[in-house]
């Protein structure tokens, strides 16, 4: 059963039967919004990039993004860069696979971000969402829709952090500006 998350909401990544999740997928999907005006039928391609930053005690340790597709320890994998987004609705355009059981012991938070690499603001993006899927059975755990795109080029979507023996996901949904995750670091730090 999907939870539609709102900003600031946190859910525990425990399974209903008490076991904890072993692998999750953070999926990102979007579409370029049709432009109005004389050449309204011409939609510009929008390249959104999903990144995951791994933190140990508030220090960035590793990052997974389109130029570093696998974290050094192999626990976080990016499925590859999508430069144009989805032509239709629904499927994930970029996905980051997280093997929760294999994350190094010192990593305590993973922050997921979305950047507009081509520089358009989120006003020009439609149907953008970020969802968390239990990779072992394909079940969607949580979905967070990038509602009401504003004049910003990045968004800090969510963080997955250790809580007790398991993990918890918190929807952040903070707008920010930047082309890649590096630009977002100052905006990420308050959320750690």
């Amino acid at each position, binding site marked *: 059963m999907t939870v539609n998350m709102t900003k600031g909401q946190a859910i525990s990544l425990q399974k209903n039967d008490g076991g904890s999740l072993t692998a999750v997928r953070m999926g990102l999907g979007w579409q370029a919004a049709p432009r109005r005006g004389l050449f309204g039928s011409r939609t510009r391609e929008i390249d959104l990039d999903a990144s995951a930053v791994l933190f*140990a005690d508030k220090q960035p340790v590793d990052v997974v993004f389109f130029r570093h597709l696998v974290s050094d320890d192999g626990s976080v994998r990016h499925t590859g860069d999508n430069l144009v987004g989805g032509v239709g609705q629904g499927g994930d355009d970029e996905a980051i696979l997280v093997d929760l059981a294999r994350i190094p012991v010192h990593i305590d938070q993973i922050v997921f971000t979305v950047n507009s690499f081509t520089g358009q603001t989120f006003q020009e993006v439609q149907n953008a969402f970020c969802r968390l899927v239990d990779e072992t059975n394909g079940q969607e755990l949580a979905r967070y829709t990038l509602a009401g795109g504003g004049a910003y080029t990045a968004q800090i979507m969510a963080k997955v952090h250790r809580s007790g023996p398991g993990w918890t996901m918190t929807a952040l949904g903070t707008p920010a500006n930047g082309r890649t995750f590096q630009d977002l670091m100052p905006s990420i730090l308050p959320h750690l």
Partner: protein
Amino acid sequence: MTAELVRGQNHPLSQSRLEIRVASGTPIVASATLSDENGRARGVEWVAHPGAPTLPGLEVSKQAAADHRLAVDLDAMPEAVHRVSVLLALPTGGGGGPARFGTVAAPFVAVTGLDGTEVASYRITGLDAECAVVALELYRRQGAWKVRAVGQGYAGGLAELFADQGLAEAHRLAGTINEAVAQGLARSVPAPPPRTADGDRTRQSAAPAHGPDQGGPAAPQGAPGPVPRQPTSRYGPQATQPGCPTDPSAVTQPSSPTAGDPVNYSHPGRQAAAPPPPPPTVPPAPPGQPAPPVAGDATGWSMDERLYNQVWGMFEDLARTAAAYRSAVDFADSRMEKEIDQALSDPRSRIGGQGDAAREAARAKHAQLVDQARAALDRDLAQLTAESEVVEPALPPAYARWDNPVWHGYRVPMEIPMALRLGDLSLPESELLRIPMLVRLPLERGLWIDSGRPASLDDSVADALELGRIAMDTAVALAARLLAVYPAGDFTVHVVDPAGSAAQALAPLADSGVLAAPPALGAAGVADVLTRLTQRVDLVQMAVRGGAADSLPPGLDPGEQLLIVNDFPHGFDDRAVTQLRYLADEGPAVGVHLMMVADREEAAGYGPLLDPLWRSLLRLTPLPDDHLADPWVGHAWTYEPALVPAGSQVLQQVLTQVAAARAKYR
């Protein structure tokens, strides 16, 4: 938003008029049972099935089909009904269809609104010997309806299922249903014969090439199963027009393959490639434990390729798990340092025991994190070690160590293997776990066996002569491996030994007669061999570029060539060095490979001229040395060459066989 249900999960229903879509790869029977608040069906009149398809608020198909739409109106249900169970069963008798759900694709059921939007869906997985299953139930809970994924199968079929629901006439009812289905079958065209090898191109029916999860608004068209020809989805649940392909998709797709199979994209006149042999099956694991490792448990078209991929998978796993461990330890170190610094810089803590306590706390935190990291590493190492223990004995000669028994059963191969083991790789964290270092064949780079003094070694090996001898032994062991894994005559070894200093090490090669010619001695010998090989590279390159590969001179050896150069740079003039560089650059593309046994320091007399040469070669060391980096995280791996164990006769035996095969080949 669709809820993908798992077994036992429920979901609220906000609408009362619903459709239940069923999709499966084969024709199945769909029925529904109503039951009261005690979960009992009150009689056969409470079962909707192909023989009696309509009940108040409920309608099912009259026939078996691969796609069903059941119409449900919950408001029209009698008050006494508290539960609607949706049943699926494989048709029994006639047509020779599958007898159990374990042999067909997992059925998919979805509850949708009348406009086709999915409310909840459920794929019934894990069925085996069952031939009837309760897929879903819709039930009243405090005045509201909910849906629950059930997935309860019955090996005894519908009769057992109905008996379980408390129906006294279970067997008779099951018989009625089967008869109704059989009548439906009789009305439809007979099942087509099994497809011939080259693909039956005549039209049999529309192809059900849809995935089972396409049960949405774009409902699958056409009657899929081999038996009932019923365009179920397009005209509502009851639009049965058996026998005639009125479905437009059947007309517009004249070359659809026969029913029941997905679209066949293979060329009808072309033989399919031989299917790969099935991968080894994993024995079932005891509950609560990971499955035991199996050799060849990777992707690939042959066992060779599977083992190659598995070894590389182990290599990457070890690299990454070590990276996780190292980064955790590094982090623990830096955190402890920072915390201790903080404690020291705080003047208040200098008084009393506060500073000591803070330091102690920092150390404890450090130790705890390192322990955790070590536990994770040990867990992964244990798994990889177990895998290595089953993989090593299963390796073919080209991938195996010299001490592997497989070398004692050596036969000259008919095909070039995918890769060759040059040695073992290990990390300091796990010195006992050795990963085979496999390189693809034909070699893409030449090899440089460093006879120089390794940095890690000071005095245990006394002199340069000794080092040179070990390096040459390594070269001979590797060359013998290359000779052995290539088919007879496909690989030729030349040796240049200007000073004759390696005669003893080269004895196994020279005495067994596998060399093309005795080792070339002196400056003249060097010049002669290099000139011949350079000419060969020129010729083959010209032929390849000119597209005239068949006009090469008849005497030219078509196999790959390996030149072992001992003692470089002794006996090499400038011209010979230039030729050597040419061979290193251009040779691999046309099957001429270099194996240099040399000390870089000694060769430095030629100046930076030779740097590109070293860089183009893969450096190997005769003694274990950590100079190789992995491609993922760049750890320094300790390489240990594949050497013949002392006192073993395996090298002589193998080379004797190679020599005999070469003699026969000529």
